[in-house]
């Protein structure tokens, strides 16, 4: 018996009538007229999140440089810093929510068995297709510049891996 969603019921509700009724003749709806006391809240529900704009964040240059190397998007450093600060302030809003004893939800499919594939060759042997979108190739190889020379350096020293 496969386990999928042990904590969910399978819905089989279909909301059908046993007798057949004719479809009512449609009239123009009056959106201001209600027949029941409404369950829809008529005023906004306040949300309380800490104001994180006050917190002045310090992000050192080393971290900025590291991020630039990890991201490789060539953003201006000042701009990067501004972006980060704003994003961190935004992200900090949830810091105070109580999550004691709450496990992270990595995937909504956490209780499903991970699918397993049979060990057989079913793919590959499609070199032309695989290379087709590469701008530069050479005799069936992809081509890339020499090794990992850090961004800061201007002189090339080939990395002998």
């Amino acid at each position, binding site marked *: 018996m496969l386990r999928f969603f042990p904590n969910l019921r399978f819905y089989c509700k279909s909301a059908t009538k046993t007798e057949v009724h004719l479809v009512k003749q449609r009239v123009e709806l009056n959106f201001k007229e209600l027949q029941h006391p409404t369950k829809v809240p008529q005023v906004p529900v306040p949300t309380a999140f800490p104001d994180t704009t006050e917190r002045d964040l310090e992000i050192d240059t080393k971290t900025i440089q590291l991020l630039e190397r990890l991201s490789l998007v060539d953003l201006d450093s000042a701009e990067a810093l501004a972006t980060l600060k704003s994003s961190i302030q935004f992200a900090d809003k949830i810091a105070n929510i109580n999550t004691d004893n709450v496990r992270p939800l*990595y995937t909504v499919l956490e209780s499903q068995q*991970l699918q397993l*594939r049979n060990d057989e060759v079913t793919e590959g*042997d499609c070199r032309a297709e695989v290379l087709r979108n590469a701008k530069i190739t050479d005799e069936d190889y992809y081509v890339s510049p020499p090794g990992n020379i850090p961004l800061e350096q201007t002189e090339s020293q080939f990395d002998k891996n």
Partner: protein
Amino acid sequence: MRKYFLAPLQVRQLATQPKLAVKPNHQWKSVVGLEVHAQISSTSKLFSGSGTTFGAPLNSAVSFFDASIPGTLPVLNRKCVESGIKTALALGCQVNEVSMFDRKHYFYADLPNGYQITQQRAALANNGKISFPVITPGTKVYYKSVKLLQLQLEQDSGKSLHDDELKRSLVDLNRAGLPLMELVFAPDLETGEEAASLVKELMLILRRLHTCSCKMEEGALRVDANISIHKTGEPLGVRTEVKNIGSVRSISQAISYEINRQIKQVAAGGIITNETRSWDADGRRTVAMRDKEVLQDYRFMPEPNLPPLHVNLKPGSQSTEDLISVAALSEEIPELPEHTRQRLVEHYKLNSETAIILVNEPILLEHFLNITKSLMDVPTKVVTNFLINDLLTYCNKINVDVEDCALSSTDLKDVLKSLHSEEINLQAARQLIELLHNNPKTDINTLIEQHNLQQISDLNTIESYCQQAINNQPTAAQQYRKGKTKALFALAGEVAKLSAQKANMKIVVQCLEKLLKD
């Protein structure tokens, strides 16, 4: 009864150069931890259906997923999980009921996704142990036990060839996505020999399980070593990582070198930096690989396209299409090397050194088991001596792997049979080995005939040789008569010379004794 003595152990693969062996040094302690990447023997890759054959044409075993084409997704290969579990069980690990996959991010031309799928937070198995004999020339064999911290499944990267002339790298992705098991051992080792012994034992285990070919020359098994030194009583020193170790022999060489290098450096007042070094096999030294000033952060993140992997830990369960049973897999694990050693000692009454050698050389073990099955009356010691002292030595002499030797178990059995029946003597037996290797599938009797290898056992002939020997060596004869029993060997040696090594030494000795008594 003829005596067969065991020559000093010369197990080829574990020999190191004496000058690199670490001398016992009370002041310094070395700490070594190994990380082993073993490529799983499977038909297709870990997360895609492309093939795994070594040496396939460039970029031909590459699926859209392997090439990181956008929109493609990983699908896990069952065989790889089973291999990982079997390996974990054989190494005494706890297989985890739930394990997860993570992305490890870094940029490199041979890593098309910009990340590797591995298992960091929740690996397939943890807390195992490997116990193995350590063989160092000049030292008694001892057993060492090293903890296996983690066994995880992960993808291999592609290969890049560096074209210095045109200042570029050429990338082949055939290897990208091949299934690897990473085994992280605790830093319980101390020397290069111990490390090499660990890897040798690991290779024996993996080969028996058929989960890895262990061909280091094909990159199917890669070993990296973390090495540090410290003064006895002080905390652990800064460690370096040594990569690019291409053979079992290099393991002990590289580690021994690095330990010595670190000791020398610190003794001279220098410090050790946390860096990666590469083993230069030609120059027999480690060299700094890259500048570690630049920090790295792999930003591990759960692989969202692979929900957690569940396995069935219930004892007595069976595997289904979706759910692998660990109990069912444990039934499939064959006898492990240590059990074989114990069985050789207990059942076959071999000593432990001999048992170690036989298990280390699976082909010798196979010969031994085949021979003893058909030659019940030959003492096991005779068989092992022959295999080790004679067959193995010959192979070493002509620089051939014993696996590649042309002699079959039947050949060896026939030789031993003749030897045991005293049809031939040991010298002749050794000659037969050479002859059979160079003339495979020849009938042994034919060879004995052709090369006149029969032992001389005729009493009269022997008596005449003996008499001649006594005449040639009057001093020795006199000394024997005076009571120096050792002098008999000189006379026996003379008979051997006279008879072109063909006299039956047992009878010779008896005959000499009789003649000298008169």
